[in-house]
């Protein structure tokens, strides 16, 4: 749709990153090229929405706050974008075919995807770790096969010994016991190998999770993360107190689900104690943290003032209908 070079130039212009001569050229073009002017306005709106939705990376976010939000007119734009994001979920029911479906990936595809990162050092570390794990897993598979083959040999040796040697019952019994002990020992080692394999797989999952989480943090700047347990009943249970550190730019709420859900997409609304909507986000997906299912919300810190809020999580069924999944009650406190 838009020329990518122009788009990059316009974002730099809006964030005050251009040198004076470049800036003057852009300004001159604004006056002589109406299409370019409308493109600048459109990118300004998208940039503001990206800020509100927590989609601006660390440096850009800081630049936006220090440079773009300097003017009262532009602050009004940001305030409008905040209100607009809050009413977005009230849009007419979305047809399921209009939604982009998530692509199902096999474990190895997701593993490969996890090492595709923008950071070269992170990519190198992830690739090296992946290689080690693959080599380790390969060795475990070979060792397992070797043990299984020895187990089969021991079984057949036991049977033929009993049948062919014509040994006395006592001797046969002793030999049988010896062979069974060896089988048990080999089984034990096999189980051990299996356990080690599972342990390695767990390590691999943990590695994938931490790589992803560190990437999120670098993209969002200073993030204050809170894990919210499910099933808190309003008025009965004490709401979770979130003490938001002063420098936090993004608040990450990890909403743990009470049971496994299989909705394609999730929506979250944040309302004040009086029921007024202050923020919402659509098209959220579920993440697996070990055995638990978690929906992660990244909220710009200024959205939550001090006070009590209700976070309502809804799942979107295949027919595009929203169904309640869970409610979480919080008290935001600022340090």
């Amino acid at each position, binding site marked *: 749709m838009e020329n990518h070079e122009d788009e990059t130039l316009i974002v730099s212009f809006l964030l005050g990153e251009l040198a004076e001569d470049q800036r003057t050229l852009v300004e001159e073009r604004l006056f002589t090229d109406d299409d370019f002017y409308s493109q*600048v306005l*459109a990118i300004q709106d998208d940039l503001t929405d990206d800020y509100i939705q927590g989609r601006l990376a660390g440096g850009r976010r800081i630049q936006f706050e220090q440079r773009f939000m300097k003017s009262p007119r532009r602050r009004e734009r940001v305030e409008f974008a905040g209100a607009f994001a*809050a*009413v977005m979920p009230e849009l007419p029911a979305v047809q399921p075919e209009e939604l982009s479906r998530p692509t199902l990936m096999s474990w190895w595809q997701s593993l490969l995807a996890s090492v595709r990162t923008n950071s070269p050092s992170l990519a190198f570390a992830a690739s090296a770790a992946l290689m080690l794990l693959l080599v380790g897993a390969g060795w475990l598979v070979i060792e397992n096969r070797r043990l299984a083959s020895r187990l089969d040999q021991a079984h057949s040796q036991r049977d033929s010994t009993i049948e062919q040697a014509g040994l006395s019952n006592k001797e046969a019994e002793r030999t049988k016991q010896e062979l069974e002990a060896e089988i048990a020992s080999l089984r034990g080692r096999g189980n051990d190998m299996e356990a080690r394999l599972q342990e390695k797989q767990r390590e691999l999952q943990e590695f994938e999770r931490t790589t992803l989480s560190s990437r999120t943090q670098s993209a969002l700047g200073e993030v204050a993360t809170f894990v919210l347990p499910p099933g808190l009943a309003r008025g009965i249970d004490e709401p979770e107190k979130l003490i938001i550190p002063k420098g936090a730019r993004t608040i990450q709420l990890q909403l743990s689900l009470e049971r496994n859900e299989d909705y394609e997409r999730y929506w979250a609304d944040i309302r004040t104690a009086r029921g007024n909507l*202050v923020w919402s986000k659509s098209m959220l997906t579920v993440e697996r943290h070990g055995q638990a299912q978690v929906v992660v919300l990244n909220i710009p810190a200024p959205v939550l003032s001090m006070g009590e809020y209700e976070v309502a999580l809804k799942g979107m069924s295949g027919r595009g209908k929203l169904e309640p999944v869970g409610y979480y009650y919080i008290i935001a406190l600022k340090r």
Partner: protein
Amino acid sequence: MRTAPLLSLPILATSSPGFGVSLVADSIPGKWSLTQEGFDQFLACLDPDREKAGRRYELIRSKLINYFDWRDCPYPEDHADEALNRTIRKIEEGDEIRDPSTYVFGVARMLLLEIGRAKEKERSALNLLPATQAHEEESDEAEMRVDCLRRCLERLSQENRELIFRYYEGDGGTKIVNRKEMAGRLGLPPTALRVRACRLREKLQACMGECLIKESAGKIR
């Protein structure tokens, strides 16, 4: 704000505090004021069709306001009007303007230099620091904004409401795909769809602003 089409003289706002007033006084010695004749001459420069000229005038004014805003000038609307006044004055004095957009940009650049100097003077005189204080807002304000916006959205036609939601829905790649699909469905070039969505957004923002003023006035009463 002035609205197109402009068939009569707009009311000029040059009463802002600070450099707005001093600039007008400094730069225009004697008594010069905008006349219907001067304004008509300027419109004729923009387009022979008066309706089109009115729309062109509004676009130039919007560009000027944003130009001064992106340059962090304190009163973008007043500065925009001042730049237009100076241009019209030049026309009245007999200057021939071949390309009004380029001419206005030149005037705006000169004015920007004056604003910069005035700002500097004021800052050193008052020993002011740049005001970049973070705006900590109450959740009540945010709620009021959402309520107002909801009311403004209700006033839009179903078609426009759908358009604005769909246009700004999603993020990154999803947004681009959505917009391409929308433009195809509506049979509009992407640029035309962009302009339409931006205008609707502007309209909603203005409506929300008016509603907030009314709400705040109601609270004070």
